[in-house]
């Protein structure tokens, strides 16, 4: 026997599966994301009324689409009637609503995949602040509720709700065309889409606290959206590269913290806990990116570095010279002192602390790193290994002053004591 709430949960699950495609198709029809969301919601309400008796239809996606489409037509008929009345009263308002109803009938039969891609590009539009792109993408494409997004970002629910409402308003007011950009604009807009997905991923990945189940779910959601995107834009090497990066990083999720939730460094992780299936998927996605000629894209290079770690069965098997070379290319593609610092760490593993220190000293006065505690921590580590203990102590103390993480501060002060 199934209770009514079980049936409702099952129907909502089906609706959630169909929701992104439903909203994407509806947005192209009605050119308004908020209205599209309302119509999709209407379709759910009707499904909750009908399906418990009739059963879930064979093709629920088509059923929901048809139902929402009828609601849209009703909506525009009402609007037209209201507008006609206004005209009769003599306000003389011109309207294009009749044409809209004509086109509604065919609009939803086109390729749904294209609509989904349009929706991704729209919700990641650079006109929106980054945090709004993230919230809107999780809402529209990930099907997360406002409450779930708020929990994931440790924010108040009204804050996220406001953010989403404002984002939709901005898109409507700026008259952003619902389309996949072409030509030179495409690359720039795609970079924004990938940036949003990786931001979502990192929000979940960098949270080591792990007391809230929503945070790891962000990693899963970003990876899933990445896989969807790879299907929709199969010729874009950086899409596959980002998927590779996320799959490989996800493979370590189970090995990154100890039983108490304390982080475990890469070199100390139990590699038997790395998820080999995700590693294989990641390596395959990276190979795809490279086949498409994208080996030197920023995500491909980061994925290739992650792959070097993933391939090493033991920490001492790591191909450090290759990682050094990859960081060198990455630093050329996207110059940044933080990447140089990472390259220095790789150099210390490949060639020793003296060579690494030479590179660190070329970036240590970079204003961007002035308050970056890792710079001093890494420099202290090199000096300590070279036996320059007094200088090392000063660097560890400075790093300890700059970090906001208590556990890290204790660690650094202990190292300062030891020299």
């Amino acid at each position: 026997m199934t209770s009514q709430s079980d049936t409702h949960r099952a129907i909502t699950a089906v609706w959630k599966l169909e929701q992104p495609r439903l909203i994407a198709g509806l947005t192209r029809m009605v050119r308004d994301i908020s209205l599209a969301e309302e119509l999709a919601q209407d379709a759910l309400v009707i499904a909750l009324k009908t399906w418990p008796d009739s059963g879930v239809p064979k093709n629920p996606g088509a059923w929901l689409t048809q139902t929402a489409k009828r609601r849209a037509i009703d909506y525009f008929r009402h609007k037209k009637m209201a507008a006609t009345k206004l005209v009769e009263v003599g306000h003389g308002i011109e309207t294009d609503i009749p044409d809209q109803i004509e086109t509604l009938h065919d609009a939803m039969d086109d390729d749904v995949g294209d609509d989904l891609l349009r929706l991704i590009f729209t919700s990641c539009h650079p006109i929106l602040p980054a945090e709004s792109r993230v919230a809107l993408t999780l809402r529209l494409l990930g099907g997360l509720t406002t409450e779930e997004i708020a929990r994931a970002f440790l924010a108040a629910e009204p804050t996220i709700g406001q953010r989403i409402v404002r984002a939709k308003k901005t898109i409507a007011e700026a008259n952003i065309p619902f389309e996949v950009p072409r030509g030179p604009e495409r690359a720039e807009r795609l970079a924004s889409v990938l940036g949003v997905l990786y931001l979502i991923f990192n929000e979940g990945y960098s949270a080591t606290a792990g007391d809230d189940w929503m945070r790891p779910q962000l990693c899963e959601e970003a990876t899933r959206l990445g896989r969807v995107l790879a299907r929709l834009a199969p010729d874009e090497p950086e899409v596959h590269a980002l998927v590779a990066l996320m799959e490989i990083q996800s493979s370590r999720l189970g090995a990154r913290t100890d039983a108490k939730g304390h982080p475990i460094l890469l070199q100390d992780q139990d590699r038997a806990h790395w998820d080999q299936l995700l590693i294989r998927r990641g390596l395959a996605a990276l190979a795809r990116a490279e086949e498409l000629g994208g080996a030197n894209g920023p995500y491909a290079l980061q994925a290739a570095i992650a792959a070097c770690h993933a391939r090493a069965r033991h920490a001492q098997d790591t191909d450090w010279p290759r990682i050094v070379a990859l960081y060198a290319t990455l630093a050329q593609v996207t110059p940044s002192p933080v990447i140089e610092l990472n390259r220095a760490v790789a150099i210390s593993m490949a060639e020793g602390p003296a060579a690494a220190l030479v590179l660190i000293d070329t970036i240590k006065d970079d204003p961007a790193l002035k308050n970056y505690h890792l710079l001093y921590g890494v420099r202290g580590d090199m000096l300590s290994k070279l036996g320059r203990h007094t200088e090392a102590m000063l660097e560890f103390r400075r790093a300890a002053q700059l970090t906001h993480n208590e556990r890290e501060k204790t660690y650094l002060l202990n190292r300062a004591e030891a020299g």
Partner: protein
Amino acid sequence: MRFMILVKATPETEAGIMPTASAFAAMEEYNEALIDAGVLLHCEGLMASSQGTRLRFDGERITVTEGPFTQTRELLCGFWLIDVKSHEEALAWCRRIPFDNGEEIELRQVFETADFAVNAVA
């Protein structure tokens, strides 16, 4: 969360009879839908149990039995591994599998490393 959808063998799969072209196409379409939605991690079909071997472990002793095995309903002929948000979503995907001739599947949730960590602490 991950789920494994286990497909039970049938007399046809045990006899090594391949699915019809239309059944095959329907399954392709289903798999494509799983990939499009970003949920499919892995799927495979298994050869008949006549190609299989059983090993039973009793202390020092290992008994090896070659297939085929009887009791078809307890045998497997394939699996999907999917990554979804909820048990309901997993069920919704199961309901869409293009079977209509008495086939049976079993949906099982997969342990994640986090589950072991919790057990280790407890």
